[in-house]
C-alpha cells in the first residue's frame, strides 16, 4: 500500500451533526476545514465553524451531497488534500472512494476495494465465513422442494425462517416452528412470493428471536487492528436505532473478547484500513453471535465507544488517512464505565414519529458532569426538510449503567427545544421503563413490548 501523504486541509462532504463532529476533530488536529454544503445548508453551524465553505449544489442531496464529481471538484479547487464523507451520502460509495484516489485526494475511509467487498452482502458473508466468523446458519442456496427444505431445517434447527430470494418488506417470509408445518408454509410462502415478486424461490435460514443488535467498533491502520468493545443498538423502531449503549448489558467479558477477536480476524482477512463496524446479532437464548454486515464508515453512535474507551474515533480516522500509525495497542483499550446515547430527532412521537422540520426558536442543551452533546443546532436555526431528522445526540457517561441512565434522564429533563417537535419525551419515557433499566431488551423491544404495551 502506498504511503499516504500527511493531510493539511480536509473537505467535509456531509452535513448536520457529523459535519460539526468532523470539523471539531480537524480543529483539534490542527487541520484546516472546507465545508461542502448544499443551498439548504447555507446557514448551518458547520458552515459557520469551518475555515472555508463551498456550495456544491441545490438542496436535493442527489445533486449536492451525493454528487461525487462536484464534491471532488470542490476539494480540488479549494486545495483540500482529503475528503471526510461522514456517514450516509457518499461514505460507502466505492466509486467515490476511487474517484478521490484517482484525483490524488485522501478518502478518509477504507480503500474502494474494501468498501466494494464488504458492501456486497453475499461477498461479506463469504468473507466472514472464510475468516471463521459465524454467520446465521441457513441453506446454502434456494431449496428446490419440501424435501430439501426439511433437510436444511433439520440441520440448522427450528424455528426457521423461509425467505423469498426476491423478497422484501416482510412479504414472502414465514416463520416455521415445527417440522409438521414446514411443507404447508413452504407452499404458501412460495405462492406469496410468486405473486408479489414473480419469483417463488425460497431459502431457509435460522430464525432468531429476542436477539440483540451488537456491533463491534474496529480501528485499523493497515498493520495494527484493534477492537474498541461493542455497542448494543437493540433499541430500534422500524430498523432505526434510537438508543445505543456500551458496554452491552447482555454481554460478559468472555463474550466481548470472543466477538471482538472475531471482528479483528475479519478485518485482517479483508485487509481493512480505517475505522469500521462489524454488526452482529446475538441470540439471547444461546449467547451465540452471528455476523450480519460491516459498515465501512464512522457510525452515528460512535460517541458511546469514545466515552468508554477515551479514544477519539474520528481523529484516528484522519490520522490513519494521513498515513500515521495507530497511537495505541489493544492492551491500551480499556473500557471504563458505561455510556448511553439518545438520538433526539425533529419528529413528533405523538404522530407516528412524523418528521417535524422548522425553526428552533429557543434552545437549551444539557451540560454538566458526564454529558456530551453532539449537535448542529443553534437558536434561530431552521431545520431544513430535505434531510434526516437527527437534531442532537445526547450522550451520557457514568461509572456504571445505573449512573449513565440517571444522568441521561437528568439531561433530557434539562433540554429545551422550542419551535419543533422532538423525541425527547419518548426517550424520557423509555428511560423510565423498568425493563429497559434492567437491560432486558431486544430488537423488537420498542415496537412489541414498550410501545405495544402502551
Amino acid at each position, binding site marked *: 500500500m502506498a504511503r499516504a501523504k*500527511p*493531510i*493539511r486541509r480536509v473537505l467535509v462532504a456531509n452535513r448536520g451533526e457529523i459535519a460539526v463532529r468532523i470539523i471539531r476533530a480537524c480543529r483539534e*488536529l*490542527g*487541520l*484546516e476545514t472546507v465545508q461542502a454544503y448544499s*443551498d439548504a445548508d*447555507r*446557514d448551518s453551524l458547520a*458552515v*459557520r465553524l469551518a*475555515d*472555508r*465553505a*463551498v*456550495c*456544491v*449544489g*441545490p438542496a*436535493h442531496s*442527489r*445533486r*449536492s451531497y451525493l*454528487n*461525487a*464529481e*462536484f464534491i*471532488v*471538484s*470542490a476539494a*480540488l*479547487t*479549494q486545495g483540500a488534500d482529503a475528503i471526510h464523507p461522514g456517514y450516509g451520502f457518499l461514505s460507502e460509495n466505492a466509486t467515490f472512494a476511487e474517484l478521490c484516489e484517482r*484525483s490524488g485526494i485522501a478518502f478518509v475511509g477504507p480503500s474502494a476495494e474494501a468498501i466494494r467487498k464488504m458492501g456486497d452482502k453475499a461477498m461479506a458473508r463469504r468473507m466472514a465465513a472464510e475468516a471463521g466468523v459465524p454467520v446465521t446458519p441457513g441453506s446454502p442456496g434456494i431449496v428446490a422442494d419440501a424435501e430439501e427444505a426439511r433437510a436444511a431445517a433439520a440441520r440448522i434447527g427450528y424455528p426457521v425462517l423461509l425467505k423469498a430470494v426476491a423478497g422484501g418488506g416482510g412479504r414472502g417470509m414465514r416463520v416455521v416452528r415445527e417440522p409438521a408445518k414446514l411443507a404447508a408454509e413452504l407452499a404458501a410462502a412460495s405462492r406469496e412470493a410468486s405473486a408479489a415478486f414473480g419469483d417463488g424461490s425460497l431459502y431457509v435460514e435460522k430464525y432468531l428471536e429476542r436477539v440483540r443488535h451488537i456491533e463491534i467498533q474496529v480501528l485499523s491502520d493497515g498493520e495494527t487492528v484493534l477492537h474498541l468493545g461493542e455497542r448494543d443498538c437493540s433499541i430500534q423502531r422500524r430498523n432505526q436505532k434510537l438508543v445505543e449503549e456500551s458496554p452491552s448489558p447482555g454481554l460478559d467479558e468472555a463474550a466481548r473478547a470472543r466477538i471482538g477477536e472475531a471482528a479483528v480476524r475479519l478485518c485482517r482477512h479483508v485487509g481493512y484500513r480505517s475505522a469500521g463496524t462489524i454488526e452482529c446479532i446475538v441470540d439471547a437464548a444461546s449467547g451465540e453471535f452471528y455476523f450480519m454486515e460491516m459498515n465501512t464508515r464512522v457510525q452515528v453512535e460512535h460517541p458511546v465507544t469514545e466515552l468508554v474507551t477515551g479514544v477519539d474515533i474520528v481523529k484516528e480516522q484522519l490520522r490513519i488517512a*494521513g498515513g500515521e500509525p495507530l497511537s495505541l495497542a489493544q492492551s491500551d483499550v480499556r473500557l471504563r464505565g458505561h455510556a448511553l446515547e439518545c438520538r433526539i430527532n425533529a419528529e413528533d412521537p405523538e404522530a407516528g414519529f412524523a418528521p417535524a422540520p422548522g425553526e428552533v426558536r429557543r434552545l437549551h442543551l444539557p451540560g454538566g458532569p458526564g454529558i456530551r452533546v453532539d449537535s448542529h443546532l443553534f437558536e434561530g436555526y431552521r431545520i431544513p426538510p430535505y434531510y434526516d431528522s437527527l437534531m442532537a445526540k445526547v450522550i451520557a457517561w457514568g461509572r456504571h449503567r445505573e449512573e449513565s441512565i440517571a444522568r441521561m434522564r437528568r439531561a433530557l429533563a434539562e433540554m429545551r427545544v422550542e419551535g419543533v417537535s422532538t423525541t425527547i419525551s419518548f426517550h424520557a419515557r423509555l428511560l423510565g421503563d423498568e425493563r429497559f433499566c434492567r437491560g432486558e431488551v431486544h430488537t423488537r423491544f420498542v415496537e412489541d413490548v414498550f410501545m405495544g404495551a402502551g
Partner: protein
Amino acid sequence: MRKQDQLTYEDLLQIVELIKSSPQFTEFHLKVGDIEIDLRRGGAAPRPETAAAADPAPKPVQRSHHVGGGELVVEPAAPPPKAPAPAREGAQAWPEGSVIVRSPMVGTFYRAPEPGARPFVEVGQAVAPDTVVCIIEVMKLMNSIPAGASGVVTQVLVEDAAPVEYGQPLVVLRPS
C-alpha cells in the same frame, strides 16, 4: 499537520485595496480561519439584494461534456437558488432588473476557451440565451455556460481561473 494559513499584513492591505477599487461592492465579508474582515463602503447603506431576489432566474442549459451524474442541468422544475449566499458572498450590487448568470456547478471559471484567447464575452457585448459566457472546469471536463437570456453584459464578477461554487454569480446582464 500544520496550523491554518496566516493572513499577513500585506495580504490584508491588498484585499482592502482591491475592494477600494471595486465600486460594485458596497460590503465585503471575509473569513479565513479565525480572521474575519468586514468592510462597508462609506455612505452606502447596506443594500438589500432586491435585484437578485427579483431577477428572472437564468436557466443555464448544459450543452457540452458534463459531469455529476447528469444532475447538472438546471431544469425548470428545480429552480436555481433564489437567495445568494449572504454569509460568504457579501452583498454585491448590480442595477435593478439585471439578470445574473450563476454557476450551476463547482469548479474553475475560465473567461476564454484557452489561455491567451479572446474572452467569450466582454462588458458591453450583446448576448443571446445560448451565447457561451464562460467555461467551468469540473475535474478536467470543460462545461460551457450559456447566458440563458438575451441582454448586454454589464459586469463579469469572477476573475479568470478562479474557483467558483454552485450558485455563485458569474456574469451580470442588462436584459434586452
